[in-house]
């Protein structure tokens, strides 16, 4: 009897080690939740990005081209937002505050813009200030070229690192054979600038003839999650794969992330893009999703407000309509959990200055996760 129990135990351990690891690991549904979701800002069409002002009020971008300031439950539309090229996945996208916003008032927006001639549009980055509910002192810091009528892959998330550099992503604009592997072209890149738009002198391709010198890394598909790791200070991104093969990457200077030469995904039709998942000189993701969750928005939990969550990564899922919590150990994903299942297309997730988690859901609004202990 004892022996059979030991066998059973051994079998269970085997099962665990077979299923519990690896990028194709299962997403778990927690038995009990540690929060309740409250619809904190309602009636938004498509909230794309969020930023928290020092007074704990909030700026929300809506894809159709609105910036909304929410204070004490009251919504005010910011005037003077630049005209956006609204087509396919493009529109008004992310918003971020300068790390010293409290003293200089700078904020950054990314949007699809048809500026610069040629039919179509491409991703633009603008710095501006808000004075009397208007967007003033506007300066376009970067505008990707050429314009194209393709509807996909504008990228456009922001992150500031500890030294104050501004990072942003631009997707490959539906032209994977041309853009991501070519550093003389925009698209499929993570970029790095000074906060005023100047190109840092130590950017990796400043001395390469013909290169877009704002490029920091390349070979990306469509990164819609970007942040600075709270402990290591490294830049992390996640990006949409094709069918399967969404990735989390640690973004390093001058590195090639391989799209479309290597990928864990396949074409939407089911046909192969490449038979390679590895190649010399190309970086591996720290995690990939099969099937694709269509990740958008990304946040590290640094607060103790939610028991067991500190150090977790939160990622929105557009296609499966939930918020994913990922636990990491030694730089690998070891556990995945499904939260707010069926809530709608989760476009963005942030941790507010109050330590609470805010989740932007398309067609609904902004949810706040109220910890159960605070009930």
């Amino acid at each position: 009897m004892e022996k059979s129990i030991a066998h059973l135990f051994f079998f269970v351990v085997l099962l665990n080690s077979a299923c519990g690891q690896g990028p194709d690991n299962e997403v778990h549904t927690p038995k009990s939740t540690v929060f309740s979701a409250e619809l904190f800002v309602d009636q938004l069409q498509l909230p794309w990005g969020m930023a928290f002002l020092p007074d704990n009020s909030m700026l929300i971008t809506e894809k159709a081209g609105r910036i909304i300031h929410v204070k004490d439950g009251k919504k005010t539309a910011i005037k003077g937002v630049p005209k956006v090229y609204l087509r396919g996945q493009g529109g008004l996208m992310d918003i971020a505050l300068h790390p010293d916003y409290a003293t200089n008032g700078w904020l950054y927006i990314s949007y699809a813009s048809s500026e610069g001639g040629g039919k179509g549009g491409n991703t633009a980055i603008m710095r501006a200030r808000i004075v009397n509910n208007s967007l003033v002192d506007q300066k376009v810091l970067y505008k990707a070229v050429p314009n194209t009528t393709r509807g996909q892959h504008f990228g456009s998330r922001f992150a500031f690192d500890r030294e104050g550099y501004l990072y942003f992503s631009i997707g490959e604009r539906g032209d994977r054979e041309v853009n991501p592997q070519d550093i003389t072209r925009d698209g499929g890149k993570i970029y790095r600038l000074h906060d005023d738009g100047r190109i840092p002198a130590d950017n990796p391709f400043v001395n390469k003839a013909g290169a877009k010198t704002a490029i920091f890394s390349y070979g990306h598909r469509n990164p819609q999650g970007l942040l600075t790791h709270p402990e290591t200070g490294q830049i992390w991104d996640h990006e949409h794969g094709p069918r399967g093969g969404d990735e989390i990457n640690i973004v390093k200077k001058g590195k090639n992330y391989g799209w479309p030469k290597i990928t864990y995904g396949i074409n939407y039709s089911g046909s192969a893009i490449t038979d390679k998942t590895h190649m010399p000189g190309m970086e591996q993701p720290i995690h990939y999703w099969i099937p694709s969750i269509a990740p958008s928005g990304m946040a590290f939990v640094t607060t103790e407000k939610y028991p067991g969550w500190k150090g977790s990564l939160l990622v929105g899922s557009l296609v499966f309509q939930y918020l994913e919590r990922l636990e990491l150990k030694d730089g690998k994903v070891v556990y995945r959990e499904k939260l707010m299942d069926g809530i709608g297309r989760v476009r963005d997730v942030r941790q507010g200055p109050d330590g609470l988690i805010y989740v932007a859901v398309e067609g609904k609004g902004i949810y706040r996760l109220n910890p159960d202990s605070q009930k």
Partner: protein
Amino acid sequence: MRAFLFTYLALAGLLSLYLIQDTPLKQSMKRGSGIYLDFCVSCHLEKGEGVENTYPPLANSDYLINNRKKSIIGVKYGQQGEIVVNGTRYDNTMLPMGLSDEEVADVMNYIMNSWGNKSNQMVTPEEVSNCLKR
């Protein structure tokens, strides 16, 4: 005899020209398939199968065939709220894609004549421009 042969060859030539040339519907569907791959495929998938309970199917879709005008309006202006497709309830948001009336007509012709769907009446840009938001 010579005149007959000439007429015969001329007629046969004209007929083959007519048969080889794509009909306006085929041409529109061809353009529409390009629009579909650019704007629709990432959610509705390659064969219009959709994702159950999330993105409604377009293949063999009762909604599409029975709600021609609503479908055009949905593609043109975006779609929000509950619809029932092939007996399954969907409550999601599709944003306006920013397509021109001609592009909406082309992609509608493509999806309404693919994957088991068949429409006898071609969608024209004029019809799309007359479809106004509710």
